[in-house]
């Protein structure tokens, strides 16, 4: 039998540190897209609730250390870091390998992201359970507040561009001193 070896999206690209910004690759574990059918809203809430996840409000995530249920659009969420339960009333698709996930941390993280993300990421506007489907530069992305930092998901194929753009923004922020 042949053997296939896995490669992570940011292999050879991360971690990186620019100024006081740290960018590290996150292995998110399984990521599933969940979209309840019109006929299955209650069933979905029930099945997820039994697994410990409340359906998130728009631009919010629920859960915690054992996985996050992240709102990614009207009637759509990503279950990140946990295997979904059997949900009879919802479309469920494994998208684990479609996304490159990076954690950005450090005192200048908001300043760096302000150069790439057209969303208000301040403490007041983007609280501990906030998330947004938005842009990083020209890339479609999901930005989620996690602890004091942010986790950013971009298309796996764009991992290289993501690192370049974050690094460039971080350099110019660091150069301001």
């Amino acid at each position: 039998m042949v053997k296939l070896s896995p490669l992570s999206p940011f292999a050879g690209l991360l971690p990186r540190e620019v100024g006081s910004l740290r960018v590290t690759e996150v292995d998110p574990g399984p990521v599933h897209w969940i979209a309840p059918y019109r006929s299955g809203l209650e069933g979905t809430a029930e099945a997820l609730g039994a697994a410990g996840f409340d359906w998130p409000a728009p631009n919010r995530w629920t859960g915690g250390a054992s996985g996050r249920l992240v709102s990614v659009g009207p009637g759509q969420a990503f279950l990140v870091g946990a295997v979904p339960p059997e949900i009879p009333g919802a479309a469920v698709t494994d998208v684990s390998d479609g996304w490159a996930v990076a954690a950005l941390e450090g005192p200048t993280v908001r300043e760096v992201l302000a150069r790439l993300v057209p969303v208000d990421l301040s403490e007041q506007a983007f609280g501990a359970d906030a998330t947004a489907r938005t842009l990083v530069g020209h890339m479609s992305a999901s930005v989620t507040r996690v602890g004091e930092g942010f986790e950013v998901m971009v298309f796996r194929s764009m991992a290289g561009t993501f690192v370049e753009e974050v690094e460039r923004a971080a350099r110019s922020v660091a150069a301001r001193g």
Partner: protein
Amino acid sequence: MRLPGRGLHEGPPAEVYFDGKPYDARTGETLAATLLANGVRLMGRSFKYHRPRGILTAGSEEPNALVTVGRRGRQRPNVRATMQEIWDGFRARSQNSWPALSRDLMAVNDLAWPLLGAGFYYKTFMWPRGFWERVYEPMIRRAAGLGHLSGEPPEQASEKAFAFCDLLVIGAGPAGLMAALTAGRAGARVILADEEARMGGRLLSETHEIDGGPGHAWADGVLAELAALPNVRLMPRTTVTGAYDQGTYGALERVGLHAAPRADLPPECFWRIAARRAVLCAGAIERPVAFADNDRPGIMTASAVRTYLNRWGVAPGQRVTLFANNDDAHRTARDLAAAGVTVAGVVDSRDSAPEGDWPVYTSGRVTGTRGRLGLRSVTVTHAGGTREIPTDCLAVSGGWNPSVHLTCHMGARPVWDEARLAFLPPEGAVPGLAVAGAARGRFSTRACLEDGAAVAAEVLEALGFDATRTELPEAEDDPYRIAALWHVPGKRRAWLDMQNDVTVKDVAGAAAENFRSVEHMKRYTTQGMATDQGKTSNVAALAVLADATGRSIPETGTTTFRPPYTPVSIAAMGAGGEREGFAPVRRTTSDAAVRSRGAPMVEAGLWYRAAYFPKAGEKAWREACDREVAMVRGSVGVADVSTLGKIEVQGPDAAAFLDYVYANRMGSLKPGRVRYGIMLREDGHVMDDGTVACLGSDRYLVTTTTAAAGLVMAHMDYAAQVLRPEMDVRLTSVTEHWAQFAVAGPEARGVVASLLDEEMDAERWPFMSCGPVGIGGVDGRLFRISFSGEQGYEIAVPARYGASLWRLLLAQAEGWGGGPYGMEALNVLRIEKGFLTHAEIDGRVTAFDLGMQRMLSKPDFIGRAAAMREGLLDEDRPQLVGLRPVGAVAALPPGAFLFAPDAAAVREAAEGHVTSAAYSPTLGTTLAMGFLARGRSRHGETVKLVDHLRGVEVLCEVGDPVAYDPEGKLVRG
């Protein structure tokens, strides 16, 4: 001349160079201050007449003192000397003069001025017609102009950023400081932006006292409090340049332009600020008066003289004369005298004026000036007669124009106020933007402070903040006394727009030629169309126009202002988009392995795919391509097809939904089966083609072409959400999740079978089947489909295993005498088989044109109504055909037109065109696909192919688009 002990600015001594000559300076002062301190008055040459020019102002409104800073990749033309901060070793040079600023030969233009008035070029250079673009315009552009770009890419890239706030305060003078303080104390998120390096506005330039102390000290106190508030962000050196929809403001920050270049530090940052509300506290700009020869170096606005004196500690002259029509300007004489500078006289146009220890000439006018490279004297006509006053600096004030520019950015026009002789912003000009202070004609310091606080309090209340009243400090509250004076009649030229060399005579000439509308006058004379946008001259120009046309100023109206307030470099607006920043790069999982084989990459959408895989000894791409085609036809080839769009469709109504979005029947597809299909746009034309695989009950996988993946996803989302919301169906893209590889050729089954965990049963995998497979213990998917016409499979695994599977596939394929193939071979293989790409499906093509009309058999689907219309089923329409040259092999260029053999190769006779072509090593001939009128009934006929651009003319035989294995035996083998 520096005045020891005067001025607010202290900086380490520095040496700067202007036109190569060194000057003593203080780090952080403006270049204008440095040059004036060193007695330099001549700083540039005017645009058209090459008139010697000096400094007119002390701010961003400067029309004259434009210089070029830096060289090569750091060269910046048209930098205002009044805004440029200097550092030790700073260098600038003058513009638009040759061979030297003081001896400019092009000044000959100035002698020809009676000829060169407004409209001269358009009236003169009319014949012969073709000469304008090729001869006259280049000549005129060379003769006239300001600074130049170096033509080299910037050495250091600028940046762009976003900011958010409750209240954006634009301008940090007395009104802005009070507004920011009120909002900051109320807890609102405040951004205070000011274009100067040091905040304080006119408080830094005037000797006003606030609460018994110097105004600038009060400003520093407020700024210290604001800096300590976590909810307030101070943005100095930041010009808010535009007001846009929904509270978005554009702002340009000078990040690295005020100091020696530093690695990684961007020159500029272009901010997009989203503000719930904004207050415009941009102050006002003093306007000069137009009189004969009022453009000589040494003539400047009265407020600029005070700025150089009080802020920078520099006397712009040793004997200064003042010419004004208002009380405010008289401060200039008082401040100069207090600093020990001789005031040669005060000329006031009114019949009474404030007294002082200097000669005052009431009912006075400056009627002429002398001094070609710098002012020597002025001629004054006043109540007591005419006299000439020796003077090296003339301070002029015609009153103040409120800086209403941003309020006009959404189309509002300012309103004339007869009492203040100024245009004021109308109410509600820009939603969410309030105006306070001098920007709405509240000119005294006290009025500005009061207005800033009051307007901020009002806005805060609307935002739901509890704004406690900020106590108002004591400050001067002098009335604004002014009498209208726009220009002094005379024979010699009186200048309005100094940057575009527009005179009073030009404006009057426009009126005489019946360009009476202010918009027509502007375009006829170019008044206000230079880089300064006429900040110091527009109002005076339309006053002159009003006079010339016998109308009042409000009747004449005003031109309006568009963004940007001050010039924004394209490099700042486009920051981040240089080179590869233009678009994200999408790499497949095989990318590194493919590149390591030396494969040239081609773009497909944002993806990069291998064009071909060169082998040692191959001299041209065609050799590699021919080899790869033969390899696929002869043994087996492997290609990365991960870039094709993949959309999962799920739900109780998934089958019905697919029947709705596809033109052919899809809902009947059974699990484990794949079908080809086409999607139409609503207008009946083909949008995309691809396959649908049924993965299980109510679960399908749609594949799209690489380039149309996003388009198809959006189209299907639209159909699900808008057209058929009653259908219970859900869609998501899985393009990125799966790495997918095509394995094609007679040996394909052997290669695939060698990798599967379970033994491969040929019966289980007939043509157009699909299903789950295990590869090395990983859950993958196998599809029996072919884009080459050979026995073909596509094998998919989660992307993390893509690189690994690619290596394994190649190793296996090479063991069977095969290898990788690229886009070039893929294209040849599909042309041999007559398969479609977007070269054929170019948006103008119907299913009928493609010979696929039979697929359209359902009662309803997107595009059906249009596709069934008579005109789209006309036999005369160009139909898909195959072409090959008659006789010898010849290139058949895509884009070439098709004609009857004996027809003239002219547009009217064209019967079709070529969409794709390739040399087929399999058939030993060139093959092409194209569209030909009535093509399906013309197989066997000869047509003439003509490519007018490349000079190609070939006779071709028309045939079926499928040139290779027309029975399709191989794919099923």
